[in-house]
């Protein structure tokens, strides 16, 4: 039972990070391979401030949010200067730099990481795994809510326009630089908060947890689930968290399993398993239409 809850919390937290990643990679179309670094910055600041400076869980949350958000704004500013492919490479480099900083700076505890984060307390009681389950579910709810507000707003519409054609977006009045940078800031801010919760949940963190491999995994989750959709981000994250748990006996071949899965999805379902116009999404839409007598007016293609 405990094991199931631990897997569930992990899956929900991963889903939260991938939904936040969808803001930049999905809506704004920026190939972001550094999300794990922002997640890590949130986790690390939470760990350092609580273990070494005795701050409470609730006090470190806003700090983690702020630090990751600022770092994201910097990356957003970089993205304005680079074409997509060069930007992707830059994010890879950035992720390595952040991990190197975690390893080499004493403040971050060096290569061994930081151990013994205290359990968060609420009203005098220490958190159990059940508490973490509720908290992570609330967090996922928050990230989903923010994403929905963005998706349905003028801002989100313009991010999608930026994804396809920056010149069109700016000709329609969008301040492209401001919108891109703020999307990165928002996405990393959310990832930072999730990182802080994650650090407290697993109670010890090491630099490699937030490495480039993890960023690739996060982006794979989004691609497999369905880039540009909230449900895709959630489905992808949950699937790729559960599959390795179910195939633990094959843990040596974990990367191979991911790779094969990713290739299969991209070959046969490039929109992602539940992405826009995927088999499942179309099937669900058909069922929904059949269940209602009057066809609903569809105003948007991109959900």
């Amino acid at each position, binding site marked *: 039972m405990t094991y199931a809850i631990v897997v569930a919390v992990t899956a929900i937290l991963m889903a939260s990070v991938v939904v936040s990643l969808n803001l930049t990679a999905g809506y704004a179309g920026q190939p972001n391979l550094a999300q794990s670094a922002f997640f890590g910055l949130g986790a690390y600041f939470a760990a350092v401030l609580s273990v070494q400076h005795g701050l409470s869980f609730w006090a470190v949350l806003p700090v983690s949010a702020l630090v990751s958000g600022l770092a994201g704004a910097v990356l957003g500013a970089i993205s304005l200067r680079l074409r997509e492919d060069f930007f992707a490479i830059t994010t890879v480099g950035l992720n390595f730099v952040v991990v190197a900083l975690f390893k080499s700076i004493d403040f971050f505890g060096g290569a061994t990481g930081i151990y013994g984060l205290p359990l968060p307390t609420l009203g005098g009681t220490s958190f159990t795994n059940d508490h973490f389950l509720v908290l992570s579910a609330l967090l996922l709810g928050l990230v989903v809510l923010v994403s929905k507000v963005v998706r349905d707003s003028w801002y989100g519409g313009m991010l999608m326009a930026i994804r396809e054609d920056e010149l069109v977006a700016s000709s329609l009045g969008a*301040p492209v630089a401001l919108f891109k940078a703020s999307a990165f800031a928002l996405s990393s801010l959310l990832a930072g908060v999730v990182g802080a919760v994650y650090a407290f949940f697993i109670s010890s963190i090491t630099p490699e947890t937030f490495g480039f491999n993890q960023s690739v995994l996060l982006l794979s989750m989004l691609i497999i689930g369905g880039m540009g959709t909230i449900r895709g981000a959630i489905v992808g994250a949950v699937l790729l968290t559960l599959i390795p748990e179910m195939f633990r006996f094959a843990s040596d071949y974990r990367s191979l399993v991911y790779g094969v899965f990713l290739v299969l999805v991209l070959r046969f379902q490039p929109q992602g398993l539940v992405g826009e116009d995927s088999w499942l999404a179309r099937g669900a839409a058909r069922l929904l239409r059949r269940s209602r007598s009057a066809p609903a007016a569809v105003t948007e293609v991109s959900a």
Partner: protein
Amino acid sequence: MSTEGKVTPLVEVRGIGVRFGGLQALDDVSFDVRPGEFVSVIGPNGAGKSTLFNVISGVQRPTSGSVLIDGRPIRRYRPDLVHARGVGRTFQVARPVGSLTVRDNVLLGAGGRRLHGVLSSLRPRGRDKTLQHRVDDLLELAGLTAVAHRPAAEISPGDLRRMEIARALGDEPRLVLLDEPAAGVGSDGLTPLAELLGRISDRGVAVLLVEHYVGLALSLSDRAVVLNRGRLLALGEPDEIRANQAVIDAYLGTKRSRGTVVVPPATGTEEER
């Protein structure tokens, strides 16, 4: 007739020059567009028409000269800032936001004023009643009501061109720059397009039109600007342009039928910027 009108020009182009390395794309071009006026920009491929549009819409900073909107010069050449001053545009090669519906494309065009600042732009774009009506009106104006809910990537070239025009009109601009709206629409797309251009003009929106279908352009225009190799060759009313010997020599040719200059539309695409 030149620029002696008493009305303050909406847009004034003053001695614009643009140099790309060794190529002088535009050289000392000056003219103006008055409120509600329909002005065509014609000239052969490579004359600098698209470059001119890119300068006026804030995409391209000129090497010399300036562009004034309502008498005030553009200082920072950024498309969103020019847009905010009431200038919309379309592109030579249609550029839809393909994953959005036709309606959402036009809606995005209508939201320009909601974009000043991240926070105000976070309001839901589907709930603004005034804008919804405006979008419906524009879709009808452009004859797009039937395809409103189709993804923009899937509609016909003619519909796509009119969608871009409707999108450019979304934020109530006072001037729209239309870059070859007839390119690729086919012969049966020309009539609805010409009707739309006429209706825009009737609504009091000034139009600056680049078009290879010179007959179409001149028939709609109050005045025309003729460019050749980056320089202003002629400026005047359609009849003056048709009769201008320099224009005929450089561009129009001498064939005439029923009073209309017959020029085969160019099929090649000009440089985009």
